[in-house]
């Protein structure tokens, strides 16, 4: 890697950012200049004039739906649900009073399968993003703080990861390991999420590491480790967490995609993607088999996207960095 990396521009928003260190130090007597520049560029700024800083009704609606799904998924073993793995009635019944969402092609209750399937989606969604945050976050913050060779090397590796098509990478990991346990699915999607998270964290670390409080801490003799964990991390964490909410939605969709290709947690364990795929053959005559899990998944993804987007706007983070 050449010494001062500027990424082969894997994302427009970071293109040429390797030259940033010098760039910033040139501009910045204080960070005022930098902040001014940022505000000039911030499209949200213009939006902000229109939309007041409120989370809004949509946000609360989205959160309510999400927590409903979450609570149902957590409480699934305690709820009086029919067995999700065994046939409990006549197959291919349309939704009715006994089977709220109908039954699938071998007579399993779709309602209970949707709730149990939510467990897989949510576990994969959160666990893989946590993995991505832990690894990608560390890489990003280290790269953004130490700059130079460290940054060139770390971000170069992230470029390599990014040049792998995401779903393909996950596919390879899951299918060649043969055993598609939930751990493998989490691992696959988690690895895929490392690079984008690392880029995001590095971008905000770059900005924060030029602020006065960091200079102040350093002049007081704080070690690099202390500056990173005590000064930079808390500032970087908030924006990154709100992006992570959207990340969870992306991970849930990715799990759905894997399940759809038959590469997520194996049957008979219910997953949303798997159910959608199972119902595909019956799409003509019994569309509800696919469409109900589709709809539930859509609402969940939408609610996460909406909540993440609102929170992000609320904390005024730059648009489009993911």
């Amino acid at each position: 890697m050449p010494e001062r990396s500027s990424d082969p521009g894997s994302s427009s928003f970071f293109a040429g950012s390797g030259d940033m260190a010098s760039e910033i130090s040139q501009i910045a007597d204080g960070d005022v200049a930098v902040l001014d520049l940022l505000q000039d560029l911030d499209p949200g700024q213009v939006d902000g004039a229109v939309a007041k800083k409120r989370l809004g009704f949509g946000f609360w609606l989205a959160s309510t739906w999400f927590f409903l799904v979450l609570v149902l998924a957590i409480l699934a073993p305690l709820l009086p649900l029919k067995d999700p793995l065994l046939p409990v009635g006549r197959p291919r019944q349309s939704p009715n009073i006994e089977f709220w969402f109908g039954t699938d092609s071998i007579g399993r209750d779709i309602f209970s399968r949707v709730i149990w399937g939510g467990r897989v989606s949510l576990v994969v969604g959160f666990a893989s993003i946590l993995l991505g945050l832990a690894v990608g976050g560390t890489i990003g913050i280290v790269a953004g703080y130490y700059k130079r060779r460290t940054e060139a090397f770390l971000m170069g590796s992230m470029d390599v990861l990014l040049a792998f098509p995401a779903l393909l990478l996950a596919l390879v990991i899951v299918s060649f390991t043969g055993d598609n346990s939930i751990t493998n699915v989490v691992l696959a999607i988690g690895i895929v999420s490392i690079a984008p998270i690392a880029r995001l964290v590095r971008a905000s670390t770059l900005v924060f590491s030029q602020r006065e409080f960091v200079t102040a801490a350093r002049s007081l003799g704080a070690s690099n480790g202390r500056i990173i964990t005590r000064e930079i991390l808390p500032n970087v964490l908030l924006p990154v967490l709100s992006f992570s909410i959207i990340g969870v939605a992306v991970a849930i969709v990715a799990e759905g995609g894997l399940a759809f290709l038959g590469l997520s947690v194996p049957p008979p364990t219910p997953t949303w993607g798997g159910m959608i795929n199972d119902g595909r053959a019956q799409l003509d005559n019994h569309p509800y088999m696919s469409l109900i899990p589709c709809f539930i998944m859509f609402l969940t993804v939408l609610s996460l996207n909406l909540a993440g987007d609102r929170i992000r706007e609320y904390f005024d983070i730059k648009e489009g960095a993911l």
Partner: protein
Amino acid sequence: MRFVRKKLIQLAIVLFAVTFLSFLMLNLLPGDTAERLCAGAGTDECVSEKRAELGLDRPIPIRYAEWLGNAVTGDLGTSARNQQPVWEAIQQRLPLTLELLLYSQFLALIVAVPMGLLAAQRAGGLYDRISTSTLFGLLSVPNFMLALILLLVFSKRLGWFPAVGYTPFTENPLENLWSLFLPALTLAVAEMAVYMRLLRTDLIATLQEDYITMAKAKGMSSGRVLLRHAFRPSTFSLVTVIGLNFGRLIGGTLIVEVIFALNGIGKYTVDSILGQDYIPVQGAVLVIAIGYVLVNFAVDLFYAVLDPRIRHARALI
């Protein structure tokens, strides 16, 4: 020129790393082509025989060097399942994937640009809010879900489009576009939202500029101001993101290709992965990575040539 050379070196390094890593990964993961081919017989003898036959018993670095040497001359090896040369298979399938990409970007733009223009003209107005939130909703539809719904409604129920397969372009260009409409639309929908938002925010920012006020003060109609003065300077990041998406989507069409049974690169890769046939996967990864890296390179040059100011400013976000 120094910039270009530096970029080219980086590009080569990334390609080298990607192919080596994918080679390593495909070889280290348990389960290989030999085992797959012997699935029926299932004896250890058969497996080790096949391994020797395919050269899988030699060390990974040597095999990689060999593969790389061949790849440079355009020989990407042959599939262990059907003996087809990988490069030949890729040549057959790449045009379809590329067409799908162009088509979907075109569809996304003809919807996103007018919507973005209208939304920006009265930012915060009713139309703006409705269109922004509709597209935001569409952004949350996973593509396999959208593909299924489109299939159900437009080809199974209404019978307007073929459910699977397509007419080759050389046979009948119009029918070809017709038969690829649903898959292209599936890919386009998610992009629409992104493009529209991007154009909208950039337009809103441009409309605050002094020269726009000047144009208005001279009595120009707001539609003319929008199209003549504001539109072009606002398309910069849009063009960039389109370029980047293009690179990203080369590997991102696989689910759509699988659902609509289109023999593009994505489906080829999935089939090879499922068949644990790693030479084609390796070839596909190479082609996809080259596409991705080249597009990024082009976008970078585009920045550097057009406007160094924006290039550096963007880096701050």
